[in-house]
């Protein structure tokens, strides 16, 4: 019979092995392949000498860098908007909803349970040339011609993604607010702080880790997006994620694609590390 200590190995080993095999190994593999001199296709058996050619290709091509910048800016806008819209929602749930908070939370979670593709499709159908908004406007006699500004634009992608992420972004903020000790607010009031000053100087700082978590929970999936821009975006919304997908699909340039993926991964990890320095995310799990 195993003692408690001996049992640890049975608990820790399987997750270590699984994560090493299917998280670390694949990431290491794209790291290795990104140093291949030939863009692809790849014959794994063939010997090769490492080079930085693929990184050079990405970093010296203006249009690739532009796509990276566009993706980062779009993800920033989407994440900031979703977090700012989610903040008052979480505040309402945590401080005002009272007994009905869990009912309201359920109401918020139902749309989040609807398939991601379906929600993106809903916006495509609404924004399209023959879509809901255009046909409703024409039906009501407000416009004669369909407005083609609605779909295939950057704003269509941003609006769709903010819509998709609002419910999800609410959860960490709500959790952080739920942990705020109400006595701290009472103490602030006793010391003469008015409602606004209590909000800005007690509630906001204490819910900041939740807001930061919400921001990254939106930013990271958005910066790597390649599906939403394909469905509601156009040529001007071509994102870095689509570039990576195309290197692996159409272009069959696996080595170049790997370098592009490594660049994205490094940038996201660095960003998260910087953020955890600024905001103590550990308070979230404590």
């Amino acid at each position, binding site marked *: *019979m195993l*003692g*408690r*200590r001996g*049992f640890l190995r*049975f*608990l*820790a080993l*399987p*997750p*270590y092995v699984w*994560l090493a095999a*299917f*998280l670390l190994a*694949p*990431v290491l*593999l794209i790291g290795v392949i990104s140093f291949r001199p030939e863009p692809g296709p790849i014959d*794994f058996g063939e010997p090769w000498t490492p080079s930085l050619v693929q990184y050079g290709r990405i970093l010296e091509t203006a249009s690739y860098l532009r796509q990276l910048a566009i993706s980062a800016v779009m993800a920033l806008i989407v994440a900031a908007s979703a977090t700012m819209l989610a903040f*008052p*929602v979480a505040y*309402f749930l945590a*401080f005002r909803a*009272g007994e009905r908070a869990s009912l309201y*939370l*359920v109401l*918020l*979670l139902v749309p*989040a*349970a*609807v*398939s*991601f*593709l*379906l*929600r993106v*499709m*809903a*916006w495509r*159908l*609404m924004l399209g040339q*023959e*879509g809901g908004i255009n*046909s409703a406007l024409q*039906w009501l006699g407000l416009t004669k011609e369909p407005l083609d500004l609605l779909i295939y634009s950057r704003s269509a992608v941003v609006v769709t993604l903010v*819509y998709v992420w609002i419910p999800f972004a609410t959860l960490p903020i709500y959790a952080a607010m739920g942990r705020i000790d109400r006595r701290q607010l009472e103490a602030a*009031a006793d010391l003469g702080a008015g*409602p606004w000053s*209590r*909000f800005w100087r007690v509630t906001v700082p204490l819910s900041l880790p939740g807001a930061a978590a919400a921001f990254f929970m939106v930013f*990271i999936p958005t910066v*790597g997006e*390649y*599906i939403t821009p394909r469905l509601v975006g156009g040529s001007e919304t071509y994102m870095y994620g689509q570039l990576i*997908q195309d290197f692996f699909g159409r272009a069959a340039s*696996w080595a170049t694609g790997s370098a592009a*993926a490594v660049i*994205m991964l490094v940038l*996201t*990890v660095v960003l998260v590390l910087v953020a955890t320095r600024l905001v103590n995310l550990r308070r979230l*799990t404590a």
Partner: protein
Amino acid sequence: MSERGAIGVGRTRVPLRAGFVLILLLLYFPIALLFVFSFNTSSVLSFPLREFTLDWYGAALTDGALLASARNSILVGVVAASIATTLGLAVSIAFSRFRFRGRLLLLGLAVLPLIVPFIVLGVSLFLLFTFLDVPRSLLTIAVGHSIIALPFATLILLARMGGIDPALEDAAMDLGATYAVTLRRVVLPLIGPTLLSAWLTCFIVSFDEVAIALFLAGRDPTFPVFLYGQLRFAQRLPVLIAMAVLLMIGTVILTLVAFRLRQRQP
């Protein structure tokens, strides 16, 4: 209620409730529109609506490829959720009950997929399976999904393990139970509902996932992969949406069950 008003922003100055209702309306409106669209005879969403029909639902439920993709999604979801929940349980017990070298690393690795963009994970696993000569199939999708679902299982279960007094386990072992028996007879019953909730959450994460699945799918597509592939055929849209609405009802119910299970735990 007046007490609550006293500690927040003045009740009258910021119409929070109205804002919340507005956000809810905004969230439900596009989904409601799809719902209406799925009962409309026209294959484009335009106003005024045409006639009411159930044909799209009939067509969806007799479409072999569509049904097969839904079945594939369930299969992948069950496998991925089972792997992720088992591993997440192991990580949460190891992390909350033991001190050992690599303890933080284990938790860090288990939640790492949260900060890896899906496209990066998708292409890396695609290359790994190609490198290992593993043909892409539902199984490779399930492996990918087990990785992205693991952080959810781990965090849900870790929060619950923190709420259980380790003295209960000590007591069981003092009374002569081995650690395996203690886990099975003391810990498992206590976290049972959370375990189910974690499994359901992982299942939903997998069921809806398309960005990784697109890279790992072989000849059999999951429903989101199938849906994505068919979206360019405009005339197929109403049938696809009818099917998606049916599946949506299922995932919404599962989400609510997962939520209730977790709320009932102290």
